[in-house]
């Protein structure tokens, strides 16, 4: 492991575009800077989601908890789920998509740099919008899955009150729509980048596994998000315009919401986990000094997981009583997904087999990702069986399952990526000792928090309960879990300390601190704005290893070049203007039930959006 401190390197050479100051960040279209903004923003949201989780754990530390009110608790778990999924894990993945997809395929930027900036701004505004609900005092409280008709705003019968008359659910619906715009724009962008921006010789089957898994994710995003867009539109109309799409009093069926939601929601699970699979597949070979075992099988198992992921949504709905034939179909389809997932796990083990394993923090996190994902995968197989799921669904067993998949899988994968790529992004190596403290706190804390949830679920503790009575035997494990959650939080505190410490330290990262295999390690740390002075020509899936072998040992540090003859896209603020337009359009829809002239605001917002888009379209890109 290269920890030698290099001499302090002068900052990158001057360039035509402004490099510093807030304005340079607001107008940037550089995929690396946008990636960093994605990372910083989503890490803050991630901490917020973690804080929400800690409050919930404090409430549940003993029976009859009185720390928060029941409605606050409902808001906490709703926003914890929504935040972690849409504002935490997805954009943290987007950070790596942004920074590393172009570099790993040997491109100078994404296909549409301004669209990329637009995605970021829309994401930021969407995240702020949905969290602003806390300030207004109407946070979403219908669960991250927002099941109709609990999310209905109208009185449905003489004996039933309106379940959600306030703005809580409106914030959630409109916030998710805003975030959907950001995700869709980003997905189209990365899709085109991967299809069309690969360097000469970078054939599809030579792409790094991270790019491959990201590619599958973009396809899933493009195909899954429109479905929830429609579901949210219908729910919004139900809430505001008196339609009955999900309202039994008008002939609608609340189960329809569940179908639409999970047709999106299950691919969403793979949207969350596949980037972590990709990162793990990058890291394991590098620190085992062996190429990825079964590259082609890894590619196709990823594609297969994504594809079948569209046909299993109803396994979230076994308790709705769909009938034996539907149950059978969705059970078998779900079990089938275990096969390509197993292939991935075995190939990861095969990658390390016979290797020479260096235990860096990145490697430890990637290994933990594999080890913990196995547990999440196996509990997943357990409730792919519908009758067994009749006991498990909506209990803490499920909470345990998806935290093993999403915390054990996605978060550990992303943490691995952070330690692995930090030197490339910031020119500084994160401290390994602190990194290991961070890792072990997180690893032990994670297992203490989430493993006992298996027991609690099987012993009858339902999900989404703000309290539980004495006498059901839930006390002990809940206390252990709360203790574990604070250990987790301590782990992330250490991570923050590590970041600050590294920030203050010297620029000590060489171009290739880990002896990496892929193109990002062939350029300086951090890369110059144009990434590659000359487009690389690729001959295998491990170009940097090829170069090392050809050089017969260490490669020289790459030179910084002026890059004056390289045209990079101009900075632009029109993406931000258009993003504000998108935000305003959805913001105006918040007032439908409370302000008769809301439509004037909407028309204004649409005009603003059109103006931004037109100026953007007619602005020279280069």
């Amino acid at each position, binding site marked *: 492991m290269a920890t030698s401190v290099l001499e302090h390197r002068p900052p990158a050479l001057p360039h035509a575009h402004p490099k510093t100051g807030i304005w340079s960040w607001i107008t940037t279209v550089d995929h690396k800077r946008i990636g960093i903004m994605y990372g910083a923003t989503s890490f803050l949201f991630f901490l917020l989601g973690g804080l929400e989780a800690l409050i919930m754990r404090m409430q549940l530390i003993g029976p009859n908890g009185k720390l928060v009110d029941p409605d606050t608790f409902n808001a906490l778990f709703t926003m914890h789920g929504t935040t972690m999924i849409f504002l935490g894990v997805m954009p943290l993945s987007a950070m790596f998509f942004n920074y590393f997809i172009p570099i790993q395929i040997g491109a100078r930027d994404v296909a549409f740099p301004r669209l990329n900036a637009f995605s970021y701004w829309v994401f930021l505004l969407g995240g702020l919008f949905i969290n602003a609900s806390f300030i207004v005092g109407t946070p979403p409280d219908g669960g991250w899955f927002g099941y109709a008709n609990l999310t209905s705003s109208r009185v449905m019968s003489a004996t039933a009150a309106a379940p959600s008359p306030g703005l809580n659910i409106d914030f959630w619906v409109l916030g998710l729509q805003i975030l959907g715009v950001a995700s869709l724009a980003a997905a189209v962008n990365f899709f085109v980048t991967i299809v069309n921006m690969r360097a000469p010789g970078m054939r599809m089957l030579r792409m790094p596994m991270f790019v491959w898994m990201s590619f599958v994710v973009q396809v899933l995003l*493009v195909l899954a998000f429109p*479905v929830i867009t429609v579901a949210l539109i219908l729910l919004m109309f139900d809430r505001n315009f008196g339609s*009955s799409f999900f309202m039994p009093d008008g002939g609608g069926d609340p189960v329809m919401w569940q179908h639409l939601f999970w047709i999106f929601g299950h691919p969403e699970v793979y949207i969350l986990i596949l980037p972590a699979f990709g990162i793990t597949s990058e890291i394991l070979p590098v620190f085992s000094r062996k190429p990825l075992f079964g590259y082609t099988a890894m590619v196709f198992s990823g594609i297969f997981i994504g594809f079948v992921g569209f046909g299993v949504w109803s396994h979230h709905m076994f308790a709705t009583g769909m009938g034996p034939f539907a149950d059978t179909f969705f059970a078998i389809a779900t079990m089938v997904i275990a096969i390509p997932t197993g292939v991935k796990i075995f190939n990861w083990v095969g990658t390390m087999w016979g290797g020479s394993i260096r235990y860096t923090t990145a490697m430890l996190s990637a290994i933990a990702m594999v080890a913990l994902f196995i547990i999440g995968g196996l509990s997943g197989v357990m409730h792919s069986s519908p009758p067994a799921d009749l006991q498990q669904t909506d209990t803490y067993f499920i909470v345990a399952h998806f935290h093993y998949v999403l915390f054990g899988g996605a978060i550990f994968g992303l943490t691995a990526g952070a330690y692995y790529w930090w030197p490339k992004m910031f020119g500084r190596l994160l401290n390994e000792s602190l990194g290991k403290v961070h890792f072990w706190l997180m690893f032990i804390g994670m297992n203490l928090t989430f493993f006992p949830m298996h027991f609690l679920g099987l012993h009858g503790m339902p999900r989404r309960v703000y309290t539980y009575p004495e006498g059901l035997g839930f006390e002990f494990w809940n206390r252990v879990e709360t203790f574990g959650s604070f250990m987790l939080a301590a782990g992330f505190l250490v991570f923050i300390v590590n970041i600050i410490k590294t920030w203050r330290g010297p620029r000590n990262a060489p171009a290739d601190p880990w002896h990496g295999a892929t193109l990002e390690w062939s350029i300086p740390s951090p890369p110059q704005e144009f990434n590659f002075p000359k*487009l690389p020509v690729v001959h295998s899936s491990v170009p940097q290893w090829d170069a090392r072998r050809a050089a017969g040992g260490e490669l020289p540090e790459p030179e910084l070049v002026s890059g004056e003859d390289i045209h990079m896209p101009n900075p632009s603020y029109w993406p931000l203007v258009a993003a504000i337009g998108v935000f305003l359009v959805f913001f105006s829809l918040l007032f439908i039930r409370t302000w008769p002239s809301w439509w004037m605001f909407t028309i204004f917002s649409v005009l603003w959006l059109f103006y931004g888009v037109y100026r953007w379209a007619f602005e020279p890109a280069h």
Partner: protein
Amino acid sequence: MAHAASHTSEPGAIDEHHWTSTGMDNRKIALWAFIGSECLFFASLISTYLVYKGKSLVGPLPHDASECVLNGTKQACEPIFEIPLVTLGTAVLLFSSLFVVLALYGAQKGNRKMMIGWLSATVLCGLFFVGMQVYEFYHFFHKGLGYSTNLFGSTFYTLTGFHGTHVSIGVIWLATMLVLAIRGKVPPEKALNLELAALYWHFVDVVWIVIFPVVYLMR
């Protein structure tokens, strides 16, 4: 991909600023990806329409006479659809797809007159279709079918309304191209700009080809 491979032998020869792996323009691939997304969008709306077909609790209904409430009184209602008008609209929309192909041909050949002429025809067709839909909505509304009257009303207005919105955006896009064409800003080397608008327009047409039989003809 074969294209990409052919470059690898002589990397020095590539134009680094216009290099793409497939040889296609980025925007074209992006639009195809977006159309893929839109397919799922309309598939969801059409599924919703089909799931709730025939489940309305009160009239008016699309193909059958029914009991409905009009001006506050319960009365018998006629079936609401008037197929001839919408068939005309459908035909006009289909022809507009042909027209935009001719306009694009003109653009690629540098025949400005041809481009402007056919593009104008396309925009007019689009406007006619939107006008037809506005008339239809207005007419249905006065026959007692409000947005929240029944499930048929909600699903019908939502599906066709979102399609109409797409048509309107297409009209705005094509009209923008028309203005550019008139100002001489669509030379043959920029014909791709028109091709993208045309691609979107074809997609909007194709969606209608699905909606028309599913909503208006299927009983």
